[in-house]
């Protein structure tokens, strides 16, 4: 599953972000996201990884630099990208079904067709049977499955996930990680994944972009190189897995003081 098709679907060139108060959040960040890969943005808190994700999503304008999606300059959100949020961002007044179908509702699809599509993805993420529940009736893990189904339902090429599993407990997080890899084997998507967990990054990613902070810069890019069809315990038992984690930890440690 390592990029067969190496053409970059998302190109970030020389992106800088300066807040009105003068703080420089990102400085000259460039990176390519190859089609079909899962690329993780990893770094200490305050390295601007969420800001970078919002810039790629078109929710935030960079002070300089540009984003290209499929070789077209992008300045606003588009149908080619879909976001998964850290706090799930589910509408508390709407059922799972309406939440998952929301992207299609905004695009003006008829009720019947958007609900049929939403139901398919609800089943896909393992939430079948919860269509008519409200978010407060779901556990954290189930809420994020709904968030993921909503992002999948609009059928965007690029999935952008902002610390999606950080609000769920450790065991559920592992389960969601495995299920995400499972899902990506079926749905060929390009994923940009933000996390602060080194283990999560090494386990999930095709490549890991390490960001430094103050200001955020690309420090180095790491390619773990595990085959996606290896099962989870084999990856975690592989000596290389520990080596990569140690290696990344050594790189990041210096930025924590």
């Amino acid at each position, binding site marked *: 599953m390592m990029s067969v098709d190496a053409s970059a679907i998302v190109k970030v060139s020389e992106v800088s972000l300066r807040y009105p108060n003068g703080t420089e959040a990102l400085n000259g960040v460039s990176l390519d996201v190859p089609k079909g890969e899962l690329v993780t943005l990893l770094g200490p808190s305050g390295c601007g990884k969420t800001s970078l994700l919002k810039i790629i999503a078109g929710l935030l304008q960079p002070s300089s630099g540009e984003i290209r999606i499929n070789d077209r300059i992008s300045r606003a959100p588009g149908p080619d990208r879909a*976001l998964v*949020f850290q706090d799930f961002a589910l*509408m508390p*007044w709407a059922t799972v079904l309406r939440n998952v179908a929301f*992207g299609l509702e*905004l695009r003006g699809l008829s009720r019947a067709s958007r609900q049929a599509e939403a139901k398919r993805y609800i089943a896909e993420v393992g939430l079948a049977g919860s269509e008519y529940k*409200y978010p407060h*009736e779901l556990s954290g893990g189930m809420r994020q499955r709904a968030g993921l189904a909503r992002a999948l339902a*609009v059928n965007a090429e690029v999935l952008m996930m902002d610390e999606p599993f950080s609000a769920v407990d450790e065991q559920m997080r592992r389960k969601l990680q495995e299920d995400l890899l499972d899902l990506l084997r079926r749905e060929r998507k390009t994923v940009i994944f933000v996390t602060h967990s080194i283990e999560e990054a090494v386990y999930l990613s095709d490549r890991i972009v390490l960001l430094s902070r103050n200001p955020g810069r690309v420090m180095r890019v790491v390619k773990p190189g595990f085959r996606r069809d290896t099962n989870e315990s084999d990856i975690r038992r592989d000596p290389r897995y520990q080596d990569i984690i140690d290696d990344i930890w050594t790189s990041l440690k210096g930025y924590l003081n």
Partner: protein
Amino acid sequence: MSLGVLPASRGISEEAPFAAEQEAAAITPVGSPETRKTFASNNPSLWFMKDLGWKLLCFAIVFACWEVVGRAHWNLAFPPISSVAVALAKMAINGELAHAYASTLPPLALGVSLASIVGTFAGVVMGLFRPAEIIFYPFFVLLQTAPMAALVPLITVVLGVGIAAKMLAVVALSMPIVALNCYKGIRDTNPSLIDMCRSLTGSRMQEITKIILPSASGMMFAGLRLSVSGGFVGVVLAELLITPTGIGDLISYNSSVAHYPEMYAAIISIIAFATITLTVLQMIERQFTGVRGPYRGRQRKERI
């Protein structure tokens, strides 16, 4: 004694339903289809009946104490509740109450309606557009914090003593509540939900109608309901201070000629009327918005 009754009646219209809602949520397994059904179909129309026995007992104890103290001739201006009840019945039969309410209710209803429409509009505009917030927000905050009892007599200078003066007093007391609740409801919209809508290529209009307004609706309804209680305060203040008509006149006249049972009867009638009105409004609100468990409950408890 009237002060003692007021908080008790508030308690019935406000806190009890939430307590009931939370208790129901705690003892039933969340999410089972059965729970949803009970919540949606049975509870909303009957919540105020919950613990009815205890509420009645509470009233009985208060009234019994009142009767004992009244009969002990502790104070001339404190008649026993039984004579108040007799006075109330008498005034209801001879048409005195109906006559008073015919003069009190029109300015109250008109004032609250006007305040609701203008206040909702102002609150929504303030919440959505920064320039409108800068211009109007201080005005509503001033209106809400100003001591109205001191300002109401000034209305006479502008509008005389007619129905318009009463209406203005009602509007002055209820509109800030509507507007500020609306404003706060809109401002409290979860920014993540707005990002979510934008990232799914929703337009600004869709963002407002599908995210911001539904998210603010709980606070908006609460504001509308609270504005009615503000309106009651406004109309009685106006009748006591500027235009001696209606229920306010019944209170002040009977007080001035030492007809204390009649005075208390008028006070009790307006408190009962306000409580019933607010309870009915809450019933309508629940029917209209549906009960969606802890989320709605939490949202509605917030006040400005």
